[in-house]
């Protein structure tokens, strides 16, 4: 008797076919170091596997490509259970800057590039970068304020068009 579970797996002649991912589209909405690096590492990782990658920067994610802000990203020390420190400590003056500096030092020791260098690596690897029109208008940001590798400022609708095609995945960070 045939196992019904096997029937649900897509297969050709009984062989399980694993279609590779073709394209990863990331929407970055946050400015915290952990969110920005997670997004960049995933985009770079995709390119290293031969998978196409795009990043759409919206809301606070625009900080990660804003010329004046991209080298000054922080990690939250208050309201961030991942920091494992009591709230009163995390809220002390200078604590956020200190924690952010420590994290950047640690990342440098692991050969992780700075944000600007990472953006250079991503664009050289063929990752397409776009800003969100709505967020840019809200924060009064225009293309000149952004990292030179950002292709254009587009709408979410435009981004969905770019994500068309089988094997494409959209990830929200």
């Amino acid at each position, binding site marked *: 008797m045939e196992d019904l579970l096997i029937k649900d797996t897509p297969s050709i002649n009984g062989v399980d076919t694993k279609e590779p991912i073709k394209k990863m589209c990331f929407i970055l909405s946050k400015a915290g170091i952990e969110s920005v690096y997670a997004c960049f590492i995933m985009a770079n990782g995709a390119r290293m*596997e031969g998978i196409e990658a795009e990043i759409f920067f919206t809301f606070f994610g625009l900080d990660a490509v804003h010329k004046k802000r991209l080298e000054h990203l922080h990690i939250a020390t208050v309201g961030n259970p991942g920091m494992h420190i009591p709230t009163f400590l995390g809220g002390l003056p200078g604590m956020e800057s200190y924690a952010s500096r420590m994290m950047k030092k640690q990342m440098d020791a692991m050969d992780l590039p700075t944000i600007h260098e990472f953006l250079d*690596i991503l664009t050289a690897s*063929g990752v397409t970068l776009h800003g969100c029109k709505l967020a840019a208008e809200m924060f009064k940001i225009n293309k000149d304020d952004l990292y030179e590798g950002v292709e254009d400022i587009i709408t979410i609708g435009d981004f969905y068009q770019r994500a068309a095609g089988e094997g494409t995945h959209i990830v929200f960070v």
Partner: protein
Amino acid sequence: MEKLINGATIKVNDEGYLTDFTQWNKTIAEEIAKQEGVGTLDTKHWAVISFLQEQHKNNTPITIRKVGSSGVTDIKEFYALFPNGPLKKASKIAGIPKPVSCI
């Protein structure tokens, strides 16, 4: 497991990476390059291959960042030389293990 490359039996792992570097030679590299869709290897390719082999010999972890700052090539060129998964392909051709790194 073993694989027949150009008439020689080469020891590889299940992803096709050489498990015994002493078995590597340029002809094997050329054959693997063809199989990986990289095509004919020119001087630039060989320069990158030598660089990677040097890093492996010194037990230096290989990252895309290191390749970019190697002085041998830049990242854009690296992606052009070894399309679609440059570090994976270049290391296979160079006869060294696949770099384990997220950057």
